[in-house]
């Protein structure tokens, strides 16, 4: 039985050793010791094997560990310390069994014990503990340092002292270690970890100072120690010096101090894990990727960042988790749109651009696309939220991410400077003021039953020069769910006769039936990136060079291969440049002015 237990624990631990937090102590009698250790476990494995509840499983495991201590772990402890099992005083102990907390959603359990029971992990943490307390030097003695290597793991060690008037130096040294195998991750988490560790530490120190002051008031140490006369005739009395260290509970006057640490450590582990998600980059980041990263930075710490750009969607699960953990921080999320709704998987939606083209018919689709790429506001109104949302979502792929400002569904009109994609409930009437001053295209989704006479608002839709395609597309033939709707499109804007070059190329890709939708997506990405590069040139040209006249701009456009009909698009796409690029250009160009 014992053997099986051990096998399971070890397979568990090696499987999920991304971060472990532990509290260590330098004992005056026994040197550096691990006191308390919190680590995450993913429970799938034992559950599959035993089919029993995780909690009892771990409790059982803990019990077996405390009854029969792991012999190999014990072997590790002997060489460094002078003696074996008598090397235990109150100061070196924390909890008998431990604490377990389970995060049902994430399927992770956080287990706190005095020592990690997997021998490999134990050896690692122990090594880190010795280094932290007995060899690494921290400038100023208290504070965070970093050390480690690939084999033993990378360590953030925060050293601090706890006042204790029984201690030889009137205080004892402790450290909190965070051990990870991933160095980059650890260093990136540093700005998050250090302040939170400091909070935990200051809490401990405050409690201990109170106890210290009380004890000092009762029995001041200084006269006591100075008064202890050395008597040559009974010097053996002097041996009292090796009195055992006191426990952290006693030093802080807090019986549940380790429970508090368990909660604090697991929160840090969990929040730290949610903080950074890894993205694999296969090439230099595209402008879209940079925009994504900037958006994340901005939402993760709440609203601290100076360059806030309006986030275009509020429904990523990552953000919601953050807001649950720190409810008061993410005020940005407190938006009317944020209300979560259970989406009906059978609700009619538009799947992709080809689908949309089929529904709208080529000519309408073309003019709609034209409106989108030059930055006119797209308003979609209808009763079916998922449908409205899906149309907006689909249209977004025409634009670089930085250009998309979306309000997926709203009960009142929002101006075009707030969003270029707007979903509206059908009750909303566009006021005279809006229809006369804003540049927009309006798509109304209406039920087919009460067919209204087709009435064009103001300007009739213009003629377009795109090639017609046959409407039958095998992909969507079977889908009749949208047959019940009709789509009415109207616009206040007269589109220029010629379609921007990049849009023509996009439409060609859409029309080519030989291309799968993945390929079309790739083509779109490339085209957008290609044109964003031209946008960058234009931006640099206008920002870096001061005033430019019409003629110069024209020449430049020629050079980058853009024509008259692309100008409006380029101007709009400039607004989509990443903050990073803008700042880079602005700082380097102001520099070039000086020199």
């Amino acid at each position, binding site marked *: 039985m014992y053997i099986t237990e051990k096998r399971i624990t070890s397979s568990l631990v090696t499987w999920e050793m991304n971060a472990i937090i532990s509290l260590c102590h330098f004992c005056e009698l026994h040197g550096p010791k691990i006191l308390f250790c919190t680590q995450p476990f993913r429970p799938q494995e034992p559950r599959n094997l035993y089919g029993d509840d995780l909690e009892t499983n771990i409790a059982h495991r803990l019990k077996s560990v405390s009854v029969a201590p792991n012999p190999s772990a014990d072997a590790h402890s002997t*060489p460094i310390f002078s003696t074996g099992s008598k090397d235990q005083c109150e100061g070196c102990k924390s909890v008998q069994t431990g604490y377990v907390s389970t995060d049902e959603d994430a399927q992770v359990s956080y287990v706190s014990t005095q020592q990690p029971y997997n021998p490999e992990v134990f050896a690692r943490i122990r090594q880190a503990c010795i280094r932290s307390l*007995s*060899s690494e030097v921290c400038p100023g003695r208290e504070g965070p340092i970093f050390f480690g290597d690939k084999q033993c793991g990378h360590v953030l060690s925060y050293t601090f002292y706890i006042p204790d008037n029984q201690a030889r130096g009137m205080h004892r040294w402790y450290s909190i270690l965070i051990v990870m195998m991933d160095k980059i991750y650890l260093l990136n988490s540093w700005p998050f970890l250090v302040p939170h560790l400091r909070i935990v530490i200051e809490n401990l120190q405050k409690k201990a100072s109170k106890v210290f002051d009380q004890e000092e008031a009762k029995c001041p140490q200084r006269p006591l120690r100075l008064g202890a006369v050395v008597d040559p005739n009974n010097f053996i009395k002097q041996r009292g010096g090796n009195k055992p260290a006191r426990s952290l509970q006693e030093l802080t006057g807090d019986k549940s101090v380790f429970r508090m640490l368990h909660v604090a450590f697991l929160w840090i582990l969990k929040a730290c894990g949610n903080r950074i998600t890894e993205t694999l980059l296969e090439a230099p980041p595209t402008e879209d990727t940079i925009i994504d990263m900037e958006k994340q930075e901005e939402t993760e710490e709440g609203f601290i960042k100076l360059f806030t750009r309006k986030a275009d969607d509020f429904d990523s699960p990552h953000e919601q988790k953050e807001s649950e953990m720190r409810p008061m921080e993410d005020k940005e999320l407190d938006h009317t749109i944020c209300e979560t709704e259970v989406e009906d998987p059978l609700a009619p939606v538009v799947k992709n651009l080809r689908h949309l083209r089929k529904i709208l018919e080529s000519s309408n689709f073309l003019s709609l696309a034209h409106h989108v790429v030059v930055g006119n506001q797209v308003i979609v109104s209808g009763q079916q939220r998922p449908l409205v949302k899906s149309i907006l979502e689909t249209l977004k792929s025409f634009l670089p991410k930085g250009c998309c400002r979306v309000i997926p569904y709203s009960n009142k009109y929002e101006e075009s400077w707030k969003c270029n994609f707007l979903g509206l409930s059908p009750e909303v009437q566009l006021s005279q003021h809006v229809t006369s001053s804003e540049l927009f295209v309006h798509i109304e989704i209406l039920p087919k039953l009460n067919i209204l006479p087709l009435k064009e608002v103001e300007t009739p839709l213009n003629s377009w020069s795109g090639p017609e395609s046959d409407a039958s597309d095998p992909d969507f033939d079977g889908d009749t769910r949208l047959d019940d709707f009709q789509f009415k499109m109207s616009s206040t804007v007269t589109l220029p006769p010629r379609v921007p070059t990049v849009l023509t190329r996009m439409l060609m890709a859409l029309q080519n039936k030989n291309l799968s939708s993945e390929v079309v997506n790739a083509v779109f990405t490339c085209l957008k990136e290609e044109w964003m590069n031209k946008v960058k040139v234009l931006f640099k040209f206008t920002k870096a060079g001061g005033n430019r006249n019409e003629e110069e701009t024209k020449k430049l456009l020629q050079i980058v291969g853009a024509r008259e009909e692309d100008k409006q698009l380029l101007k709009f796409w400039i607004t989509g440049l990443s903050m990073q690029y803008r700042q880079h250009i602005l700082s380097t160009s102001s520099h070039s002015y000086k020199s």
Partner: protein
Amino acid sequence: MSFEDDETPCTYVGSFPKGFGYGPEEAEIEGPVNPGEEKPRILLMGLRRSGKSSIQKVVFHKVSPNETLFLESTNKIVKDDISNSSFVQFQIWDIPGQIDFFDAAFDSEYIFGGCGALIFVIDAQDDYMEALSRLQMAVTRAHKINESIKFEVFIHKVDGLSDDNKIETQRDILQRATDELNDAGMDNIHLSFHLTSIYDHSIFEAFSKVVQKLIPQLAVLENLLDIVISNSKIEKAFLFDVVSKIYIATDSSPVDMQCYELCCDMIDVVIDMSCIYGVRDIFLSRARDDGAFDNESASFIKLNSGTVLFLREVNKHLALVCILREDGCENRGIIQYNFKCFRAAIQEVFVARNKQANKSTGHPQMDLLVNGQNDDELDSDETTQTNGGAMASGHGLLNGSLLQDDD
């Protein structure tokens, strides 16, 4: 009341002038000798709470013995640089008692490889059986790594023992330790034993002996001191490291503990007096913070016992302290004069050592010094000769100088 402990263990300040310790070396004549050469290391080992940190603090940082009651237990190796003079240059490593540095987690080759002496401190007030087995282990392992280590055992905290007890304890420890070594077949290792306490001068005495073993020029220095006392009717002479009050050399007559204590007290008196009344340029003195010990520091003190104490600065960190009979100091001029010669000789020993150690010092000051001397002598051949004389007997130099000098 606060028990703020010193934050950086090596810069403790008591009532002692701040900079009058082993701060960064100023470019004086006895500047760092061999820039590339590792300073010999003295390791302080022993069980936890045996008194290692206390020894280091009391001897080298002027911490009062009572203050050691509030020292925290050492958790890492504390390295303390003692580079005060040309002869006394070493590092003291205070090794925490709880940790086994022979463990694979530590680089024991590094720790013991460059080690000159290993001091093992045994708390005589405690049960010392565990300490003895640790001593045995440390000695055998360190010897394996580095055969040239000198082993010194401090039987410490003997202030708590009665005189009988002291002798008995020393005998017992000596017996057991050597027996164990013999049993292990390591009888080629020599252990020296010292009875010490931070509450009297015994710790300084013991440390002096440890340090002396690490000075290669010890024989020359002792020889020079012998010459001085025999030519000046001096009874006993010590060459002191002023800051630590350890003596780095003495003449060949036996050392009497009381004489040594007397000389230590004399240094205290001179330093205290200079601090209060000897400061000429208060700003300069503050800036250098050297306790006003300078090249004019000198003192004669006559005691009621008919003994006279004489102190004279040799260089920034060294002082010659002598004990003589009252009638011996009738001719102070000769003593003063012989002292000058002694001082010059010491500096020559230093230069010689330098030349020997590395031909090109790579140190501008050093080269200047060497050249300067050559200029004085005009004839460089003669210099070498005189140097050789000093090295060989010392006598020739002193006598020769007596004749040559016009002062």
